């Protein structure tokens, strides 16, 4: 192995720039990334991305890896030097805030893209704070200035007053039209500092992403902070202590390109025959097993699920298939957790934990699409903490497991600190909504004459329920929302049971605030009446708390179901009709004596139309 010239490496480090692009959804992040790829002679690579994206499934099967989130680019600056850019993408959703923060931790700078007609949004703010937390240099790119509705002065004003950033250097441009790209590239060179760190120090590399390949195992994406990593090195993952031999290091261009080493300041990947993603945690530090660093990089934390739901196969015989599918997904998604659970109503399934609602949707969709499973998902629930009278504390992920009320001293539920940014004319409706959702007002600031930033502490269960939809409808879509977990608080909560044909259905139990129990009970009963088809007998639907019925309705009996006509010529058409009926039944679950369709188990999320 060739001797490394650390002096050279230190010189090379001066030409590295690591940065992210952060933006509220739709403000033009990917268009800007596209333009940057184009301008940095990476047109070939850009074309390749498109090509590869088109045939992604196939390529994945063949083990060709495309990773868009840490691309190495070459940029020849006006000063005549060639710079090495690492463009690090970040997931843009509140469910993945921690991943975003780790990606940002791999950078020295960030380009904040703001739509010049929209201005600052809640997600913009959340991203900026994350960037500031990581001590990044923030470049401003005011996008879409060509739109007639663009109001550059107002937005600059918002940036200065609302975030406290100096907007005088902001690049005004249009990613779509390629305007302002040259200026932002030069700013990357001039304003974002080169990475620090010593190439010859003990290795400290931050894992900020990872994915799974069938043949090579887990491939972590890393930022080397100190030291150098090479093929053949024995490495150690500092949080788990697991050790591996590195068999490849490289960068993404975006295709995987092998390198001899990655050194302080570099961003790339390693392969080390890591079999289980459970060992590789985003935020963890990789060090050299033979010459370990004295301590890991700061900021690592284990991700916890925010919401849980039960996942059951419609066809009980598919239980093992569902377990296999969850295990496979877990290989590439370490934040997915699950354990077996049994429901009287739904049989054998899994209680599954997610980072948030989007994450839950994604997982459910992948299970159904990629693994061809018909699933019943119960309504998502947050994690409650319950103090029992005997002094023990339990956590409750499934409402049905609520202990006997006699033994409960206190129930606590997770709260979030919600940031809402909205035109000021909607302050009234927003505050009303937050109060109704049991929110506690924290503060309100004017970002700009007509725009406010409001903070509330709100129970996470209300966010899971319908807060975002309500916020959007109360503000005609203008308000934006971001939130972060903000501890547990005691609440007056009760378990509400739902009974079908006098039998309590465990999978339909829900935890509600006592003050809203009556209203929710009525809504759920009404919704179930809509969703559950008529059976051959009348089915009472009841909501009950501690055995006391608080709402009820009846699903009337189906008294007749027979095709009037079925002449010869009709055979195929009538068959189609019967097939539809049969198909519908496949998606139903016999719960006691009642056939219940899948959607019914989400009915507890029903909201007033």
């Amino acid at each position: 192995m060739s001797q490394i010239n650390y002096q050279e490496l230190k010189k090379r480090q001066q030409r590295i720039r690591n940065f992210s692009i952060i933006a509220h959804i739709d403000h033009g992040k990917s268009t800007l990334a596209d333009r940057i790829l184009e301008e940095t002679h990476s047109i070939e690579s850009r074309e390749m991305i498109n090509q590869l994206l088109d045939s992604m499934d196939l390529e994945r099967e063949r083990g060709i890896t495309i990773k868009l989130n840490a691309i190495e680019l070459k940029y020849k600056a006006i000063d005549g030097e060639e710079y090495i850019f690492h463009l690090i993408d970040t997931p843009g959703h509140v469910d993945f805030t921690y991943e975003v923060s780790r990606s940002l931790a791999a950078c020295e700078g960030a380009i904040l893209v703001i739509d010049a007609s929209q201005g600052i949004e809640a997600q913009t703010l959340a991203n900026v704070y994350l960037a500031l937390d990581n001590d990044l240099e923030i470049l401003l790119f005011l996008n879409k200035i060509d739109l007639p509705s663009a109001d550059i002065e107002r937005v600059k004003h918002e940036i200065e007053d609302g975030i406290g950033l100096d907007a005088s250097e902001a690049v005004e441009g249009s990613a779509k039209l390629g305007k302002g790209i040259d200026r932002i590239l030069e700013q990357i060179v001039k304003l974002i500092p080169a990475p620090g760190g010593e190439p010859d120090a003990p290795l400290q590399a931050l894992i900020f992403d990872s994915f799974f390949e069938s043949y090579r195992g887990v491939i972590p994406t890393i930022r080397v902070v100190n030291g150098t990593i090479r093929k053949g090195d024995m490495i150690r993952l500092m949080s788990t202590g697991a050790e591996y031999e590195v068999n490849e290091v490289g960068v993404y261009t975006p295709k995987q390109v092998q390198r001899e080493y990655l050194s302080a300041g570099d961003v790339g990947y390693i392969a080390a025959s890591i079999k289980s993603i459970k060992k590789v945690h985003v935020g963890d530090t990789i060090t050299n097993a033979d010459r370990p660093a004295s301590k890991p990089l700061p900021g690592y934390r284990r991700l916890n699920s925010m919401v849980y739901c039960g996942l059951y196969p419609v066809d009980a015989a598919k239980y093992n298939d569902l377990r296999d599918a969850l295990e496979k997904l877990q290989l590439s998604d370490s934040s997915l957790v699950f354990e077996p659970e049994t429901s009287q109503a739904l049989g054998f399934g899994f209680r599954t934990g997610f980072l948030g609602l989007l994450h839950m949707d994604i997982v459910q969709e992948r299970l159904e699409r990629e693994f061809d499973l018909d699933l019943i998902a119960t309504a998502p629930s947050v994690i409650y903490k319950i103090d029992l009278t005997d002094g023990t504390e339990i956590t409750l992920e499934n409402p049905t497991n609520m202990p006997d009320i006699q033994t409960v001293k206190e129930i606590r539920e997770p709260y979030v600190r919600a940031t809402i940014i909205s035109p000021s004319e909607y302050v009234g409706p927003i505050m009303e909504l937050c109060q109704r959702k049991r929110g506690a007002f924290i503060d309100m600031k004017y970002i700009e004459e007509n725009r406010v930033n409001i903070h509330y502490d709100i129970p996470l269960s209300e966010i899971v329920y319908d807060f975002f939809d309500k916020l959007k409808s109360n503000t005609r879509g203008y308000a934006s929302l971001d939130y972060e977990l903000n501890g547990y608080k005691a609440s007056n909560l009760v378990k509400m049971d739902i009974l079908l044909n006098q039998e309590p259905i465990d999978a339909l139990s829900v935890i509600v605030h006592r003050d809203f129990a009556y209203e929710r009970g009525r809504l759920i009963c009404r919704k179930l009446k809509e969703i559950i088809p008529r059976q051959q007998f009348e089915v009472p639907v009841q909501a009950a708390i501690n055995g006391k019925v608080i709402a009820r309705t009846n699903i009337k009996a189906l008294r007749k179901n027979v095709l009037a006509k079925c002449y010869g010529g009709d055979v195929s058409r009538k068959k189609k009709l019967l097939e539809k009926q049969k198909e519908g039944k496949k998606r139903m679950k016999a719960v006691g004596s009642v056939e219940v369709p899948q959607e019914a188990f989400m009915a507890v999320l029903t909201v007033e139309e």
Partner: protein
Amino acid sequence: MTSVYIHIPFCERICFYCDFPKRVGKSDEIDLYLNALEKEVMMYEVKEKIDTLYIGGGTPSLLNINQLIRLKKIIDLFKINENYEFTIECNPEHLTDEKVKMFKNMGINRVSLGVQTFHQSLLSLLNRQHTKEMVYQAVHLLRKYGIENINMDLMFSIPNQKLDDVWNDISHIKQLDVPHISYYSLILEDKTVLKKMIKDNKIKLLDNEIEASMYHYILDELKALGYKHYEISNFSKEGFQSQHNQVYWQNKEYYGFGMGASGYIDNIRYYNEDRVNHYLEKLNKDMKPIKTRDLIKKDDKLKEALLLGLRLINGILIDDINNKYGVDIEAYFKKEFKYLIDKGFIKVSDRIKLTDTGLFYGNEVFEWFI
């Protein structure tokens, strides 16, 4: 036994509930159609003598005398057996002395009248244009020319219909005393005016419970009037069961001609083009106007035999089906039969048939045989 169905897809107006292949036709288009129909019939070269012939629609009775003469020419291409049954579907308002005489001349010996109801505002709601008086006149006219084998199509569970209205309709049935009644519950089909009206909240379907009680009532009342209930929706006086429809229910083969018609010949169910220009085009090119063909294999045949046969009140004679298909049907559908017997929907003795309860839940039974 050989049977032929001929479809005349033209109407003067569209009934709101109808999803059959049809169009509002101009006279010259009907002429073109009849030419094509003749060509289609000739292409098949049916050698056997036919036992039942059924002209359905659409509205076959809107053909004028000249067109009926053309139709007769087509029908005369078939050899006819003794004791044949030859039915034409008619709207009451279309019958005149001249037309009924023409029917006789053509050999028609059974007429199916599209009555639906005797209730004027319900008729309007369905976009039918006759009055109850016209029904009386039509029946009178048919009898005048010796056509006694008359069916009336009636409908219940029409939006806004009350049990009293059904009672009233049945009193007219009693009065007219025709030997055959088809009593269909309104089925909301896709792509119908009615479907749209419901979607737009202009009218509401009747509650399922009311529909069921109407059906109960009809079963009881028609029985009291001396009609035998022999198929889910069909009732007849002794000796007047529809021979042609039995062919369908007994899963026998038949020829189908005309736009949108279907046939079942040599183990193949075929479905004709259901648009007039496609139908005409294919025949212009000397091709049979078939849109799709399904080869019916043994398993499908057995299922269809049950799907159709269980519609008959007497059901299916087990020996018959075992001999016809060379199976032990009880073993073949062991699981299905057990489930359905446990549910109380079917009974199995020397016959397989729906129970009184099963009659109301036929679809729950039929879905096991598709």
